[in-house]
Structures are given as structure tokens and as C-alpha cells.
């Protein structure tokens, strides 16, 4: 199995008013290609901070974060931007779509930023992804014309369009009703299984937890023992 993410003794302190908060207190974690994993823990446990470290949007106070073999701390802002653009996909709790752009444009944006594909190639890839998430009929709609579930589907398409090594999803179902939430998780699971795309969620939603292959419990900035299931089990046996 290919290693995509590795964290070594990662700590993170950040100021909260007058005091410093230890958000992460020495996290070691490795994620492999094709995993469908969830960071699970109560609020304030450090889920989001950990996700930000992995997403290269925040840097650790100490320790090392490797994304696809690149050590994050050594990278310039430009290089980090590039890492995010090519290697990572983001799905946000609040969707964070560009309200001024329509569905197609939102999904196309990472491709434009990458600037590698021709218009035709982009069209093909964007269209097929939108179809995949079931929004072909809403191609020209603006995000505020869509339901929460539909918006999160756009998010998923946007996260996937640049063919990232890993998709990071910060509480993707928190703003959705339970039925829609499950639909979204199922969609991601399906993509994970057919395309071998790696997913890492943060969540405290039990229904999400029940659908992932690997649960990474986090509490007080430390990872407890991972609960591996399915695919992870076989790897475990092989190792």
C-alpha cells in the first residue's frame, strides 16, 4: 500500500485569548492510498487542527507532516499552494462554494488554477464528474439555488476534479439532515471504491463512522488506537 500521509510527533499550540491551547500533543499517523478513514472525537479534541495540518493550510508547531513524500514545514507558500492544488481535495462543512459562479464554474475552478488541460479536456472531466454526483440538470445553477445536499455534491465534484491523492472532508455531513448526510457519505464511499480515491473525514456522526473502513479516534490532541476494519484488516494481516 502506498503511503500518502505521514505525521510524526506533530504538536500544535495556538493562542486562545490569553492562554495557549495544546490542540495536538504528539500525533503519529500514517494514511495509505485508497483508505476511507474518519477522524472521530468530541469537539475540541483536535480533529480540525489535525485535518488542517494534513491539508497544508496550517503548519505544526513541532513534528513533521509528509504529504505524498513532501515535508510540509520546509515548503514555501507557493509550494504549499501547489501541493493543495495538485495533491489535495477539500470538502468543507459549510460547502464554501463560490456563490458568484455556477455549478460548472465551481467545479472547473481547480482545473483552471492548474492550467494543464485544454478547454475540451476540462469540459469532459467537469461534465462527467457533475454527472457522477448527479447534478447534470443543475449545471448552470448558482450554489444558492441548490439544497444543502446538492451543494455538498458540488463540493465533492470540485474536490475530485483535480485528481487529488487524498480528499479531506471536515465534518461533511454536519450541515445536512441525516438522510442527505448518508447519501453524501455513500456517494463518497462509492467513489472511493470505484476510483480508489483516498478519503479522510473528521466527524462525530455515528452513521458516518459506521460506514468508514478505518476509525481514528482522537481525544485531547492525541490519537488513541485506530480501529481498523475491512481493507485495513487485510493490510494488517499482510503486514
Amino acid at each position, binding site marked *: 500500500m502506498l503511503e500518502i500521509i505521514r505525521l510524526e510527533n506533530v504538536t500544535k499550540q495556538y493562542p486562545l485569548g490569553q492562554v495557549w491551547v495544546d490542540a495536538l500533543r504528539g500525533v503519529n499517523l500514517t494514511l495509505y492510498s485508497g483508505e476511507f478513514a474518519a477522524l472521530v472525537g468530541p469537539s475540541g479534541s483536535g480533529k480540525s487542527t489535525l485535518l488542517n495540518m494534513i*491539508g497544508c493550510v*496550517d503548519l505544526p508547531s513541532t513534528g513533521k507532516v509528509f504529504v505524498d513524500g513532501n515535508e510540509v514545514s520546509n515548503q514555501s507558500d507557493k509550494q504549499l499552494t501547489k501541493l*493543495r492544488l495538485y495533491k489535495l481535495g477539500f470538502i*468543507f462543512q*459549510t460547502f464554501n462554494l463560490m456563490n458568484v459562479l455556477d455549478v460548472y464554474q465551481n467545479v472547473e475552478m481547480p482545473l483552471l488554477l492548474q*492550467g494543464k488541460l485544454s478547454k475540451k479536456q476540462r469540459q469532459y472531466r467537469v461534465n462527467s464528474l457533475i454527472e457522477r454526483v448527479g447534478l447534470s440538470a443543475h449545471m448552470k445553477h448558482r450554489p444558492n439555488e441548490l439544497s444543502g445536499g446538492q451543494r455538498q455534491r458540488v463540493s465533492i465534484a470540485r474536490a475530485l476534479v483535480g485528481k487529488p491523492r487524498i480528499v479531506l472532508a471536515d465534518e461533511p455531513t454536519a450541515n445536512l439532515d441525516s438522510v442527505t448526510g448518508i447519501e453524501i457519505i455513500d456517494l463518497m464511499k462509492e467513489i472511493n471504491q470505484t476510483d480508489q480515491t483516498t478519503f479522510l473525514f473528521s466527524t462525530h456522526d455515528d452513521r458516518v463512522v459506521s460506514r468508514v473502513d478505518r476509525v481514528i479516534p482522537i481525544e485531547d490532541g492525541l490519537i488513541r488506537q485506530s480501529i481498523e476494519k475491512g481493507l485495513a484488516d487485510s493490510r494488517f494481516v499482510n503486514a
Partner: protein
Amino acid sequence: MSFSVLQLVFELSWRSLWSHRIKSVVVGIIILFGVFLLVVADALLESANTAMESSITSSITGHLQVYDQAAEDTLSLMGIIGNRGAKPSLGRIANFKAVRDVLASHPNVSAVVPMGADSAIVYQGNAVDKTLTALRQSIKHNQSAEKQNQIQKLLMLVDKLEEQYGLTIDISNNQEKFSSAIEDLQTVKTESFWRDFEKNPESSLQFLDTHIAPLVSETNPIFLEFLATDITRFKAAFYRFKLVEGEMLPEGARGIMINHTQYEEYLKDRIARMFDVIHDALHKENRAIKTDLELQYYIRRRSKEYQLWLLSLDARGAEKMRRELAIFIPSSFSSSLQPEPHSNVGEAEDNNLEFYLQQFLDLNDENFDRHYQFFYDRIAPMIQLYQVNVGDLVPLQKLGPGSSLKAKFYGTFQFEGVEDSGFSGIYNLIDLMSFRDLYGFMTEDKKREMVQLKKEFSTVEFDRAGVEDALFGGDSASSIVDFGTDDEKGSDSDSDSDNDSDSESSVLVNTRERMQVLIDTRYTSEQLDQGPVLSAALVLKDPALLKQTEEEINQLIKEKSLPLQIIDWQTAAGFVGQMIQVMQIVLMTFIVFVFCISMVVVNNAMLMATMQRYPEIGTLRAIGAGRGIILGMFFVESLMLTLIAGGLGALLGLVLVQYLGMVGIPAPTYEFRFLFGGEVLFPHIDEDNIYLGPLVIIAVSIVATLYPALLATRVPPVVALTTQE
């Protein structure tokens, strides 16, 4: 950044402008207003600047002025106002011709006009003086009817004076002087005085000259600023110069021309002037006497000056005016406030002139037009409407100790477009020869030079000394200027007139002839040039090259080692030039102020917008947008806004300026006429104006946007993930 990314940036910018419509419109309006204001203000400033420049350069100063290098003070042609006490020491250009030859050789100089500025008192004899002069004339020509008439008039004046002195003697500090005055006045009323008069008129006239004439207080002495110049050159160089009344000062002749505005304002009968002023106030400015305290006060004050008419009218004239008014007044009475119509006619017939004049000059909105009409139809022909008339010989006296002379008054002029400005209107014109005489430019050296000159240019064949005596009314045969010295002018200013009237009567015929010779003398421009002037005005062919030309001429002056210095029109215009600079600074400050305000507002609006959009920026950063894209997005956004709003503002400004350029902006006050270069300013758009506004506003908005945009690029992507909506 590839084309498609640029497209994305534009798309994002454009769409966010649209989706934040309200903010965009508010900021847009500010930018629009800023550019609008800038374009309009700049066009107005520029137009007013050009107009002011033209007001000055085409009326008095020219573009450049040269004057004596050794001058202690800076030449300021329009700074003389309010500076009469301390006359600037300007030295002189000893030989104008030499200077002109050099300066005229510069390719950008179209005219070199000689100049000299100084003040003079226009002296008019008082009523007794005039009557005595007429009396002398009538004796000389044996006109007994006229003689009797003048004696009657004199007695009327004596009555008036006795009344005046009787009224004021009690409150005077100088009881003695007043008593002797009244004694003298009573002497004149005795029969014995007139018996002596018949026997020996000259000694009685002497008594009247020395004892009675000084008792009349002078009418306000009239100070006039004179600009001496070669009128032919002046007329050719200063295109705004226009004749109004009379005729042009003939080429090479001695004489003066009076500024028409001053002629109306200071030399016109003061009640006639009042009628004019009120007429304009009511009909041009739409004011009303009833509601206008200023007008009421003006009428009350001025209308008392009919006393001067009483002094100047002879018995026949007074009776004629009384009868005219007696017919006119009752009708206006009965129509307005007379409750008993049967009594007014008979009574009115018995009233005196003073009573009627008081009624006549009691002006209000209802009667003004009728009275105005009546005044010009019937009254004006009976009075002396102007203190000097075209064709008169006007006695001029230099301010302070010095000389006086008489100069023929040829006509009045205006500087077209700046008639009433009060700035370029300060000067009257005098010929160079009279100026040199009046202000003592003929030193012993110069006189010797003149003798030399006369030999060289033997065109002037007349007894110069004699002619000049006649002109200056003096008996000083040897000197051109030392008639009327300090001693003669003495402490008692009221007797100034003695010399003039004395000599005029005693050598009347002879003087008249000789004076005529002097008036008819025409000097060639060579003669005019060969002599001292105070400064020379340079008029340029291309005023845009002013600075360059100034330097080149300075160089020229040094090369030819002429003892001159050169200044531009703004300096030469003295306090007016400074005022223009101050105005420019004020207007520029205003524009800069407007800029700063709009910059702060744009900056603030952008900053607010940026902060509101932190999640959006964070998201973009998180999904892989670099700082350049964020910067570009914000920049393009404000640039688009600026271009659209600024463009619209510039367009609106252009439209307004074009419109104003068609209808014109009327000058609200006299001073503005000068700034506007006329009654109406027609603003115009220079090419500079069109580009300047938008360019500067774009520059400002870039600066104003830079900070928020840079701030935006510093937004860490983590913000997007942690911000809860």
C-alpha cells in the same frame, strides 16, 4: 498565469462586483463623484487660470516685464493699490530704445511696450474758482450780461458759504478762522465792494481768489493711477484695449485717456452715478430698495450731495431746475401720498429748489424709473455730468511734492472682457512725454540729451521752453519741471489753484496759442523711445514658451550687458499675481482634499469588503489559488469599478463643462470678472483635463486598494476551514 486563469480572475471580479451591488454602487458613486469633481474643478481652474492670465497679460503687464536691475523694489504693476503711501523705488530704464532693439530681436517677442506707472491727482477748481474764471473771461471780452450773471452766481455761492460757516462756527475749534471767514463773506455782499470792483476789477478779483475761493472745501480730490506708454505700441500689443468714448490718443501726441469704469465711478456727478447704480441694482440684479438696507443707506447718503448742484448752478439755472421739478414733483405726490389734492399745486409753486430736490431724490421702488428717466431727460443737461469731459484740458498733479501739468483728455477706454474687474481697470493712460515731464525724468543730463536730440531730429521746430511753460501754466522759463515747486504748493492746499487761474487769465491768449502748439505736437516713435521709462512689457507670440523665453531673454540681457532684470507677468501683477497663485493653491488643495477623502473612503470600503470575504479568500487559497490570483482578483475588481465609475464621472464632468462652456458661468462679483476674464467664464476642456482625471483617480484607487488587496493575500487558508457561517 494562463489566459483561462485570467479569465477566471475577471469572471470572479466581475461577478463579485455584481453580487455585492450595493457596495459597488456606493463605492462607485464616490469614485464617480471624485472624478466628476476633479474634471470639473480642473477644467474650471484651468479655464479661470487662462482667463486670469489673459486678463492681465492682454491688458497691462504683457507676458514679461523688464526693468532696472538696480531697482530697490520688485516691479508690481497691480500692487500699487493700497500702496500709495510707500511708492516703490523702481529705478528706470534710461534709454528705452536700446532696450527695445535688443529685446525685439528675440523670435518669440511680438511687442516691446514702454511703460511707467504712477499716481496723480486730477485737480478740478472749485465752484468759486470756476465762477471767477468765467467772470474774468467776461470782463476780458466785455460781455456785461455774462458778467452780471457770474456776479449773481458768486453772490449765491457767498450766501451758501455764509450759511455753512454760520452753522458750523459754534462747533469749530478755530473760532478765529471762522469769524474772519464770515467777515470776508459779508464784505463781498456789501455794495462798496462791488463799486470798487467796477473801478478796479483785478484787485477785487485778487481778494476773491485769495479770501473767498479757499473757503470752498474741495470736492473729493480724485486720485488716478496712470500708466505711461507709447499708445500706438500699447494699442497694437494689447488686444483687449478698446476705445469707449471720444477718440484715441493720436499717435505721438501728448494727452491722457481715462479708464471708462473710473470715468463713470469717480468722475461722474455723484448723484448721476447713484441713479446708474440703483438702476443696475433694480434691473440687472433684481434687488429692491424696500428690502435692501444697503441700497437705502446708499440713497440716503448720496442724495444729500445735491448741495454740489446748488453750488454750481447760477441763478437762472437754479430757477430753471426749480420750475422743472415743480412740474414733475406734484404729480408724483398726488399719485402716492397727498391726501388733499386741492392744496398741493399752489403750495408747491412756492417751495424752493432744495425742497424739490429733496422730494425728487427721495427714491423708492415705485418712483425710481420715472425719476431716473426725468433725471436724464431734464436734470442732467443742466448739471455738469462729468468733472472732466472729452476734449478738456485736465490739470494733473503729481502726488506729493512735485510738478503739475495740463493734459488733453482724448477719450475713455476699456479692456474688453475685464471692464469692471477693478484690477486691470486701475490704470489710465498718459503719453510718455507728459509722464517724463510730470515725474521729473528730465534731469540736467536728460535735458542736455534733449538738446542733443533736438539737433539730431530737427523735426520739432518750435520754442520748446515756451510751449512747455504754456502747458504747465508756469512762468518758469528756464526749466521744464520746476513750475509748482514745494514752496509754491505750500501748506494751504486750497490755494493750489491760484497759479493756474492767475496765469491763465493774465496770459490767456498767448497761453492758449502756445498750449495749442503743444497739443498739436506729434512726437515720432524715435523720439518717444529715446528717453527713460520705468519698465518695458514684452508680449510673446507663443505664451506657452514663457519660461523658456524668459531664460533666453535673461541670457540676452547678460550678453548685451543691459542693466535690466526680467520678471514674468505673475510677479509683475504684484498682489494680483499673488492672489492668482493663492487661488491656484486653494483650488489645488481642494482637489487634493477631495482625492484624499475619496481615497480614504475607497480604502475603507475595500477593506470592509475584503474582511467580509475572508472565508471566500480562504476557500480559494485552500483549493489551490495562489496569492497572485487573490491580489489580481481584488485589483481587477477595484480597477473595473474605478474604470466604470471614473469613466462615467469623467463623462458627466465633460458634459457639465461642455454645457457650462455653452451657457457660461456669470461672474457673481466684480472681482470674479477679473478671474473669469470677463463677465462670463466659458470653461473649456483641455486634452489634459480628460486624461488627468481618470488617470489620477485610477492611481489613487490602486493605492487605496493596495492595502486591502495585500491584506487579502495574507489571509491564511485555515481561516476558510475554521470560519463558521
